[in-house]
């Protein structure tokens, strides 16, 4: 059947694309200690969620950047975090910032390690974008490569639309050995992101395999 041929052909193309050559979900450790523009990162398991109150209870491992031992803690999450995407039992990575008023740390971004890979990778990319934006807002340099955030005080985030995180599928954390990841700083990261945003969207291949031909 002609139709199934074209689908098969498409499947072959997918398989041949770099995105498909990558595998494994070793991102768990890969990103754990990476420096998100100096902001502390935590890892743990969701113990309880209160979506209405934007609150998550997390059993986290030690967070060296804050000199915190492993323990169970309640965190407030900022508005950008969609807690309804998580469930108790999810293993998560989360980015923390200090709320100067309450002197407490709150979750700025959170990604589930138990989420399907595509979602997890996209989430981690967005987390890094959040970290960069926060660093820029607080005047900290995040070694942003050629991007001069100082020149964009009134930065319209709309202007960042050109930065295509959907295209970051090509960037797989799984690619990196933990050591690489640790060594990787924002400069490299941003360069990668910039590079991926330059790629024409047509190159982007769906990550999900849907082999219709076998049906």
């Amino acid at each position, binding site marked *: *059947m002609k*139709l*199934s041929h*074209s*689908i098969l052909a*498409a499947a072959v193309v997918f398989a041949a694309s770099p995105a498909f050559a990558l595998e494994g979900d070793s991102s768990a450790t890969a990103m754990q200690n990476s420096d998100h523009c100096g902001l502390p990162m935590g890892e743990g398991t969701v113990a309880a*969620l209160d*979506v*209405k109150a*934007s609150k998550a209870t997390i059993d986290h491992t030690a967070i060296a950047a804050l000199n915190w031992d492993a323990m169970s803690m309640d965190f407030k999450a900022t*508005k*950008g*975090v*969609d*807690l*309804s*995407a*998580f*469930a108790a039992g999810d293993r998560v990575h989360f980015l923390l910032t200090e709320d100067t008023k309450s002197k407490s740390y709150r979750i700025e*971004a959170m990604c*589930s390690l*138990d*989420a*399907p890979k*595509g*979602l997890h990778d*996209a*989430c981690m990319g*967005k*987390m890094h974008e*959040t970290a960069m934006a926060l660093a820029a807002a607080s005047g900290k340099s995040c070694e942003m490569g050629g991007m001069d955030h100082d020149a*964009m*005080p*009134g930065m*319209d*985030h*709309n*202007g*960042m*639309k050109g930065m*295509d*995180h*959907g295209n970051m599928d090509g960037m797989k954390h799984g690619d990196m050995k933990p050591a690489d990841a640790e060594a990787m700083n924002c400069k490299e990261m941003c360069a990668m992101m910039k590079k991926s945003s330059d790629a*024409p*969207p*047509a190159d*982007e291949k*769906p*990550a*999900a395999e*849907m082999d*219709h031909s076998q*049906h």
Partner: protein
Amino acid sequence: MLTRRNLLRTAAAGGLFAASSALLPAWARSATAGNKGIFEVSGNAFDLTVGHSAVEIGGLSGHAITINGTLPGPLIRFREGEKVTLKVTNTLDEDTSIHWHGLLVPFHMDGVPGVSFPGIKPKSTFTYEFAVPQSGTYWYHSHSGLQEQMGHYGPLIIDPAGTDPVQADREYVLVLSDWTFEHPHKVFSRLKKDAAVYNFQQRTAGDFLKDARENGLGATLADRASWGAMRMSPTDISDVTASVYTYLINGHATEDNWTAIFNSGERIRLRIINASAMTIFNFRIPGLPMTVVAADGLNVQPVETDEFQIGVAETYDVIVSPTRARPFALVAESIDRSGQVVATLAPEAGLVATAPLLRERPTLTHRDMGMDMASMDHGSMAGMDHGTMPGMDHGAMDMAAAVPQGHDHKMGVGVDNVAMVQVSRIDEPGLGLESVPHRALRYSQLRSLTPNPDTRAPGREMEIHLTGNMERYMWSFDGVKLSEVTGPILFHEGERLRVTLVNDTMMTHPIHLHGMFFDLVVGDTDHKPRKHTVIVKPAERLSFDVTADHVGDWAFHCHLLFHMHAGMMQVVSVLPRNAATGADDPHRDHTPSDTPVSDDPPPKEAPMTGMSHEGHR
């Protein structure tokens, strides 16, 4: 927390629901009412009755115009290529009609009163008969007055003649819609008088007390303050907001908790239809990625995403494969984020998914206003207060800078804005989705599964501007509303042409062309996504290629019902090959630096009175 009050409320809601469930088709009933899947009605002959019905939504009673007594109407299901007969009986005291949205029917079966047929008179029956060469997820709705707002819509699925390339273990139809307990004519007339009438998150003292009781006084005060602070003009995003609307999935409000059941590891196909009158939705299932396999009924190459914006009248088919046995929320959030509707996808009946909090409202940017950031002094814009935008005089923006844009449509009271800089926004996910912490679908990601049937280069181009005056609630194409239009837009049978839409307004418009699919220009590919409806973002310039292969008169309009009602509609006439040429086409030479529309030839005949072309099929 399980308080006595909550218990009582739950019990009351359950009681109301039991009473109302008889009105719902089996497939739309929630799991608690026994629905475990879609009740399929397939066949070649359908009897449909349009009438008045009482409905129960979110525990409240309302009055609806329904098909066969249900809201939404029954799921009509038949097979590709088979001839079907649909007898529609009108029991109303006013004319009605059914338009088969996206179906390639002969034009006199298209169901648009005044364009393709006279309409269905009160107490009479009209028989539709056609066979269509397509399959997929579609829908049907009234094209008469504002009946669509009152419930006159339903899903329609055409199964492929051969094997479906998309295989799933089970499937669910999700009909998204907006419901109002107010009469739509009242809503419309209020918009005409004051476009900002629904701008405010109008909440009553009663709401306040209720919220204060549930959330505490401090939280409620903070909530009100934050809404107040955030309040820019939603007119710029949605004309009608959750202050009037209750958003529905399969006729159910969030409280009704419509539930779809799955087993862990299954492939589930969701057929999502936006059957709203006025609401563009953002659809997502937090924590569960979706693989888009079809858009507007036609298969696309699978693309994984986490959220998509679905314009009024668009449809998407997605595959989800939950591997964890937990409830997921099916969330349809209005584009202005004034409200949302949540249903449940769960491993068993009786579970309620946790609804996400409403996200922060998106704000329009200078890009949306058609003002190029790069060409402007950023420093001077820092102090610009978006909160003051509702009162901003858009007329003042029609400055000299607009001229280089080369627009040639009519200026005047009906046009309050011209996008000075129009850009391609096909690679953007849509208003408010740029900053979500996950992937959001962009049109540029879509590729047709099969090669486009016609890959000729367009032999002709035309440009159509989407125009409006928000303050006066006037909406039009090229500055001329339908009642003043001088003639149809002419296509010639067999020709391939490129239509470029330029959105001169600050609103997102879902534009629908009847009678033919068009190929969205997303790059140099022969697998362009084929659609019947396309979202045109504020200040966007977007093109599609279309082959005029179906002779007849076809409606072409904004699918926001009140915009269409206000005049954002025209007729596309596909003239048969042998027709006498020389018809006056105001759009024929519609290119920049053209003469003004007013210099065009006078109307040769009224466009809405059954234009008859010799030789049409």
